[in-house]
């Protein structure tokens, strides 16, 4: 075990996989010589050399095309799209090509690749560099979608993503890069499609993702100590495949579901979970399903405004408290 930052866990995960398998290659903008604009890939060029770790031009479509072509022909590429907002620039590759080629070709073509990207707000980067777009990816059949909230999960889930024979969109959260956590030293592989129950309570089940997870845990503590409301908190971790079994089990116990989502309101990932719960847990619900999300607006840049927009610990506490009845 070692205490690593979330960003160091990225490099550790990539390195672990590149050591294990010669077919793993890594490309992206400023990822090699500079170690990444978020310093999440420091040391990889030194260890693996410029053939396996490549700096690309600013060409998102070429980056993902290169990854797809390589994945189709025997390699296991990891491609970086620097900010998840830029996925819009190469969305054709993600949604039309990578997601669909196995299905359309009756299994003849495969895309065992990982696209890792820095997602989410809280860094005052403005509307085009702060979006949470994991819900865009969730909406396209054929891509697996992962968003870890801790350093250990970064390493473990990245390893699982690389080893997965399907394409995986790996959403790191840029405002979590500096957070620290205990990370296993040696071969650490987690499992896609497994949510984690972080705490258990009796009154309400709170389901959160990525940067909303620590806020939900903090809110749960305040709800317990100051308002006598005990909450279960679940870190979803994987949107596709989705661990519905864990979520439904915990919602049945408390009778209430609250989701905490960073994406803007409409069609956020929580809407799907709310819909599944309303369908499959209807007769176990003791109150309406509540979604706590960023409002349906672009994210403003000024720090005070951005903090108002994203679900805060206070807003989570207040919403749960007032909707508990």
């Amino acid at each position, binding site marked *: 075990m070692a205490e690593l930052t979330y960003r160091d866990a990225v490099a550790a995960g990539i390195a672990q996989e590149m050591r294990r398998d010669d077919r793993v290659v890594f490309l992206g903008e400023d990822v090699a010589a500079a170690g990444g604009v978020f310093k999440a890939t420091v040391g990889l060029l030194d260890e693996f050399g410029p053939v396996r770790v490549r700096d690309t031009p600013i060409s998102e479509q070429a980056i993902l095309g290169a990854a797809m*072509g390589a994945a189709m022909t025997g390699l296991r590429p990891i491609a970086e799209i620097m900010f998840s907002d830029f996925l819009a620039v190469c969305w054709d590759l993600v949604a039309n090509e990578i997601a669909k080629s196995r299905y359309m070709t009756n299994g003849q073509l495969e895309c065992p690749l990982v696209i890792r990207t820095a997602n989410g707000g809280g860094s005052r980067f403005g509307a085009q560099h702060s979006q949470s777009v994991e819900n865009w990816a969730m909406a396209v059949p054929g891509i697996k979608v992962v968003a870890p909230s801790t350093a250990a999960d970064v390493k473990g889930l990245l390893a699982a993503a690389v080893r997965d024979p399907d394409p995986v969109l790996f959403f790191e959260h840029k405002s979590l890069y500096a957070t620290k956590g205990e990370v296993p030293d040696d071969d650490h592989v987690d499992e896609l499609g497994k949510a984690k129950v972080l705490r258990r309570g009796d009154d309400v089940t709170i389901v959160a993702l990525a940067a909303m997870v620590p806020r939900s845990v903090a809110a749960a503590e305040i709800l317990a100590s100051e308002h006598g409301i005990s909450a279960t908190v679940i870190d979803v971790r994987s949107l596709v495949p*989705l661990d519905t079994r864990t979520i439904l089990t915990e919602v049945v116990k408390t009778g209430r579901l609250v989701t905490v989502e960073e994406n803007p309101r409409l069609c956020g990932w929580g809407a799907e979970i709310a819909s599944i719960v309303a369908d499959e847990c209807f007769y176990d619900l003791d109150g309406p399903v509540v979604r706590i999300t960023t409002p349906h607006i672009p994210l403003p840049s000024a720090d005070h405004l951005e903090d108002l927009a994203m679900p805060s610990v206070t807003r989570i506490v207040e919403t749960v408290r007032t909707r508990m009845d």
Partner: protein
Amino acid sequence: MAIEKKKAASASASTLANDDLGEDTRLALFRSQTEIRQVEQKAYDLFLQNLIKGTSHLALGHEAVAAGFGVAMRSDDYSFCTYRGHHHTLARGASMTGVLGELMGRDCGLLRGKGGSMHLTSAEHGVMGSYAIIGAHLPIAAGAAWSAQYRGTEQVSVCFFGDGTTNIGAFHEALNMAAVWKLPVVFVCENNLYMEYTPIKDVTAVENPAGDRAGSYGLEKIVIDGNDADEVYRTAQVALTKARAGDGPSLIECLTYRHSGHSRADPGAYRPEGELEEWLKRDPVPTYRVRLLEFGVAEDALAAIEAETKDAVEAAVKTAVASPPPGEELLYADVWADGGASWRN
């Protein structure tokens, strides 16, 4: 319409003997073009009989490009083409039954009806997909080339696309990356003068949409007669050799013409009067036949190839028509590597 010829590698075809190519190669080129021609004509007939649904983009007139490269490539090379890709798929050796079956949405189709005309793929023949989003496959082809370079196999990735593609962003990204990384990829532009319904010259800032852009990537301007299978073959050889030697990509513009509309729905009424007739005079398949006779290949040999092809096409149609539609279980098959489509537990 002026046609530029590249000086060194090709000259007036009719004066060359079977010296640099050899009769076997030429017969292979003839057979390939004949097969493509007959299958595409059959596809057109099947439209009219409503046995082919949806949309289809025929390559009648493009046979020489497909055959020239198809014969020149190694069997383990990769090829990528567009939704107008029946000819490239057949030229790499995929079965007629598979192609026609896919067009008809039958279980015997190359993709068992999952992909359709625009996505023909035969991985065992190196046909790594036909792509319906303009330009998407250029970066993907570059990626396959990167993989070959990384693995050191001397495989080459050949990427076919139309003139319209040269104006889309992915073209630029792929060419640039391929040139910078010296990838073993050959980009082949089939310039048939029309980007869908619009003359390419009306929407392109340069005269040769691919050729005049090559210099932007430090590449040589190569524009050839795409209706001359021999010229295509020779040009292909040079580019493939260069790529295998590690000397990087090539961009080749093949001037050609399509005999039918852009797609099934298009009768091609936007073409100026007389243009089609002019090009039909240079129809690659009959002109190549004439050339072979001039080289002294026996008429019987050519007729035999045509007859065999005809029989093969008939047999393929019969098999395909008799093939059932794909089973319902295919609906959920192969979203994921485990063969299924499940996104939850």
